[in-house]
């Protein structure tokens, strides 16, 4: 029932609306019919009035003609004609054929009348029809003049019963009398229009007769007017009345036999007239029937057809109303059904997406606006070792590795509805370990456009990152290995150089002894010795720098110095038959580079060039300048070329492969060019090789050119000699006796008391002595039993806060870190002579020296 109710109600509403429409339609139709009927009746009334009025006009004209004869004076034919002409000149005479005058004659008066007419110019005049009658009324005057008047001239209308009846009525009443329809005497057989004659009596002059008898006695004739119905009606309406058919019947019978006039035939096949009516027009005792019929054009012309509009519009509105009622009644049910369907669809959609999210190979999480986990799919939970429920509501920072939160926060917000570029992050697992992921994030906004969180897609890249790290480590090992190889290659040359230096030193020592023994000055020899020692020191520094195993440090620096240093080492190793031509740009060529790695590159390329020279004889060109790239950007251009054996295409294609070598076993590891390629790539550069067998090989390296860095602050003026000490006690430790002696002498000369030791344990025991009075410790790093750092720690346990200086021929990064942690100073051993006194003074001034006593207890300083 509930289901059917809306339909029934809608039907009821529609039916009521339709019923109302029908009522309105019916009412409008009736109103329209009434309106049309009123218009029709008005037209009928107006037509009747017009006809009456026209006939009344004719009567007035005829009365005028009557009055012409009633004045008493004789009226001539000319006067009659002129009067009639003037009367008929107006539009009201339309339809009138003419007027005539017929005198009433007795039989006795007739002959004289005829004689008079004949004498007046009508020799053949005769009264027609002939015969004896009790009275005659021959037509004597006819106007207006027309050729057919002859037909009427002399005719006696009294002889015609129709005319006679009207004439006698007019005579007896003194009023207008109209005949029935007749044929005028002037009509031809062709003329078919109905015609009428109007008669007014003419009495003898005197007062108007007051009785029928008196009228009969004083009657002297008649005046008559004739008109044709067709002419009359056409002058009233034209040939057709729009939308209406007029028929005029003689008498009250409106049959076919009585039709005098029809404005237009009724369409034979048309529908019956909607409106049809008659009106009876009576005058002078005579009646006409005016019948009017409405054609369809009448309705079209006057109808408004509002009923059809009401029917159509009402029908349509009824239908719409029914539909609206149905919609309103069923709206709730449909809305509910639709909501259920939509809910079902939404649930299905959510289930689909949930399955996708749950089973996705990628990690998916949602972070709310407060930075908390609002959702994490099982993949993420498994990665991190938590359950999904445990992750919900916790801050994201709980799951980010150390230092990753800042990186995450620094993640630039992506454009709306766009994902951020992947950010590689370390996430922290439940067990504290970390794993690498690549995070792509998309913001979530609410309906008002406010940030509501973020949707993150995570990809596990831990294996890749570890692989990259291993690869980087391997590459570093590779570089170091190759570096060692290069050093090995240089070993012979370096040894040769050192031999030369040592020869110079030993030689000058011998000269100095001899000179000293001879009492000669030894300054020149000592100066030469010093120069050789400095040279040796520089060579050692270069080797150490080249071989230093340290992390890549890119900084903008000129290429020339690092190339020159490398070539200086190389030159010492090259055979004399190998010419080394160097063409470096005069102006600094700035690149962003790691000096050590660049030296390794130059070294490897030059070594290869050297090895490519047949019989160790040839030329190696090294050059540096700037050149634009194909896009016009300036680049640093470094080339190394040789005129050696060259390489064929097959070899050329493999030269950068690790371990690929054309040398015999034991004469190269095949890593050199691989390392060069790797270093050039890391520096953002490119490498191009040109080679031809028997011609030589050219390696051209290009690096992005950097703008010159800001000028470094001016080097401070060389420090003034360190102030002399105040006899502070310095504990000197070095397993090299020469170094111990040297430091002792140097410090004593600088005003310090020195206790020298060659063994660190002995030095430690001395420091433990009560009242040892040690103010500063200067120790070598690399010693047997314990190294310098260990010694510093042990001394600090006994003498907390005592300043310590560690010297070493090679200071690694690890050593620097240890020194920083312990708070000890470091000194490169080769700079002992120049810097040790100042450093001791500095460390004594920086901290409170334990055991600093105004009274020295160490060996007194040298005077």
């Amino acid at each position, binding site marked *: 029932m509930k289901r059917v109710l809306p339909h029934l109600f809608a039907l009821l509403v529609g039916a009521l609306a339709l019923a109302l429409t029908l009522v309105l339609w019916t009412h409008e139709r009736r109103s329209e019919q009434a309106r049309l009927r009123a218009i029709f009746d008005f037209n009928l009334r107006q037509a009747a009035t017009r006809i*009456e009025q026209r006939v*009344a006009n004719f009567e007035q004209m005829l009365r005028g003609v009557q009055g012409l004869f009633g004045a008493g004076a004789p009226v001539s034919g000319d006067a009659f004609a002129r009067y009639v002409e003037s009367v008929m000149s107006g539009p009201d005479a339309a339809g009138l054929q003419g007027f005539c005058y017929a005198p009433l004659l007795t039989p006795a008066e007739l002959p004289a009348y005829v004689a008079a007419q004949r004498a007046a110019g009508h020799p053949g005049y005769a009264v027609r029809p002939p015969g004896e009658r009790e009275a005659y009324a021959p037509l004597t005057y006819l106007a207006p003049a027309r050729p057919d008047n002859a037909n009427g001239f002399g005719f006696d209308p009294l002889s015609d019963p129709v005319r006679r009846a009207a004439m006698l*009525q007019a005579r*007896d009443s003194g009023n207008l009398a109209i005949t029935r329809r007749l044929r005028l005497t002037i009509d031809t057989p062709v003329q078919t229009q109905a015609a009428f004659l109007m008669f007014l009596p003419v009495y003898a002059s005197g007062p108007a007769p007051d009785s029928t008898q008196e009228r009969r006695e004083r009657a002297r004739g008649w005046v008559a007017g004739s008109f044709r119905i067709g002419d009359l009606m056409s002058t009233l309406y034209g040939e057709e009345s729009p939308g209406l058919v007029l028929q005029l019947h003689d008498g009250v019978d409106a049959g076919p036999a009585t039709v005098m006039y029809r404005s237009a035939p009724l369409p034979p096949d048309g529908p019956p007239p909607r409106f049809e009516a008659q*009106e*009876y027009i*009576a*005058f002078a005792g005579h*009646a006409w*029937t005016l019948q009017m019929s409405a054609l369809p054009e009448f309705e079209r012309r006057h109808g408004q057809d509002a009923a059809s509009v009401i029917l159509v519009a009402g029908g349509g509105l009824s239908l719409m109303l029914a539909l609206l009622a149905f919609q309103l009644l069923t709206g709730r049910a449909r809305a509910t059904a639709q909501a259920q369907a939509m809910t079902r669809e939404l649930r299905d959609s959510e289930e689909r997406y949930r399955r996708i999210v749950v089973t996705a190979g990628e990690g998916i999480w949602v972070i709310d606006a407060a930075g908390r986990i609002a959702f994490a799919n099982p993949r993420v939970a498994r990665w991190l070792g938590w359950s999904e429920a445990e992750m919900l509501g916790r801050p994201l920072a709980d799951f980010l590795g150390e230092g990753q939160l800042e990186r995450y926060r620094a993640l630039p917000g992506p454009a709306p509805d766009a994902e951020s570029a992947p950010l590689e992050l370390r996430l922290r697992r439940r067990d504290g370990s970390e794993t690498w992921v690549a995070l792509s994030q998309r913001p979530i906004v609410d309906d008002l456009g406010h940030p509501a969180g973020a949707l993150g897609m995570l990809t596990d890249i831990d294996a890749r990152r570890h692989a990259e790290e291993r690869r980087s480590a391997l590459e570093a090992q590779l570089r170091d290995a190759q570096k060692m190889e290069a050093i090995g290659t240089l070993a012979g040359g370096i040894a040769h150089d050192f031999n030369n230096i040592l020869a110079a030193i030993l030689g000058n020592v011998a000269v100095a002894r001899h000179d000293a023994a001879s009492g000669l000055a030894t300054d020149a020899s000592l100066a030469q010795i010093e120069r050789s020692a400095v040279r040796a020191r520089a060579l050692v520094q270069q080797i150490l720098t080249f071989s230093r195993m340290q992390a890549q440090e890119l900084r903008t620096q000129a290429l020339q110095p690092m190339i020159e240093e490398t070539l200086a080492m190389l030159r010492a190793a090259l055979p004399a038959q190998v010419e080394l031509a160097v063409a470096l740009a005069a102006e600094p060529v700035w690149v962003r580079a790691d000096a050590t790695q660049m030296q390794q590159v130059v070294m490897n390329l030059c070594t290869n060039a050297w090895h490519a020279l047949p019989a160790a004889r040839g030329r190696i060109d090294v050059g540096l300048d700037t050149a634009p790239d194909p896009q016009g950007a300036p680049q640093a251009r470094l080339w190394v070329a040789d005129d050696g054996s060259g390489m064929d295409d097959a070899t050329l294609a493999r030269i950068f492969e690790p371990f690929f070598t054309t040398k015999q076993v034991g004469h190269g590891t095949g890593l050199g060019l691989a390392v060069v390629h790797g270093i050039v790539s890391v520096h953002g550069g490119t490498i191009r090789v040109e080679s031809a067998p028997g011609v030589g090989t050219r390696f051209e390296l290009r690096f992005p050119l950097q703008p010159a860095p800001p000028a470094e602050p001016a080097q401070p003026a060389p420090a003034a000699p360190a102030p002399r000490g105040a006899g502070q006690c310095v504990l000197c430790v070095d397993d090299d006796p020469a170094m111990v002696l040297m430091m002792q002498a140097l410090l004593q000369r600088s005003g310090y008391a020195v206790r020298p030791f060659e063994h660190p344990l002995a030095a430690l025991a001395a420091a433990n002595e009560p009242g040892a009075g040690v103010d500063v410790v200067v120790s070598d790093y690399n010693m047997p039993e314990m190294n310098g750092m260990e010694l510093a720690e042990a001394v600090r346990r006994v003498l907390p806060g005592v300043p310590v200086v560690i010297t070493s021929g090679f200071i690694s990064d690890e050593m620097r870190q240890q020194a920083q942690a312990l708070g000890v100073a470091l000194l490169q051993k080769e700079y002992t002579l120049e810097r040790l006194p100042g450093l001791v003074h500095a460390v004594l001034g920086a901290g409170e020296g334990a055991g600093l006593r105004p009274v020295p207890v160490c060996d007194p300083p040298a005077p």
Partner: protein
Amino acid sequence: MSRRPLLPSSARRGLLRCLLAGVVASAAAVPGRAAPAAGAAAPDCGRPLTLGLHEHGLLYSSQTGEGIDKDIAEEMARRSGCKLTLTVMPRARIWQLVETGALDFSLSAIADPQRERFAEFAWYVSNKYYMLVRKDADLHAVADFRRRDGLKLGVIRSFRYGRSANALVDALDADQRVTYATALEPLYEILRDNRIQAMIVEPFDYPAIHTAQWQALTTILEFDDPAVPHGLVMSRRSLSPAQREAWQGVIRSMRADGTVRRIFEKYFPPELARGMTQFQP
């Protein structure tokens, strides 16, 4: 029609008694005008005055040239000394010309609110209206005519009657059940031909319907309306209020000295004439 005294048949005596009773009974109910003030002006005869006659039974016949209205008009002319030009025309046209002022007078007309806007009336006769209905229509009361859809009524164009008669005419006209004619004669003919089944008549029409033929064919039903005064029609547009008052005086004098009654007695039995002409206007 000759001017012979009415000679009712025995069968019509009842009708006459009916007519007389109706006229007498309602004579006192007709509102009338106050007595003329002393010293009313005489009609102005400075110009020819026009009077329209319509052909209507005893009122006027164009065939005889005689009738009550013609007698009234002649008496008016005689008493006033004015020349009255008589013109016979349909009643509808008479009203048109009176309204426009082209016609000064007409006679034996009744008033209604529309006519009183352009015409003033001077009563001299009062009579009821009757329905002349065909016997074969089988009607016994005027009210039955409305209920019989197939019946048609004949009416003279522009004629008005008593209240209930007017209501009937208007209702039938709305139903297209009224046939109009400009005069009585055509209505008689179409009534005879059964193209209409009834027409409204008044005592003036009696001579035309007193024949045996009509007696056999028709019967008369009475409207419930009281007698309606008829009188002189004066155009407000063509006649000044003073002139209209003057002519009121002429009619009053004609009534007062029995002239009107005598005129009516020429056409009606004395009792009927007296009942029609002696009333309080």
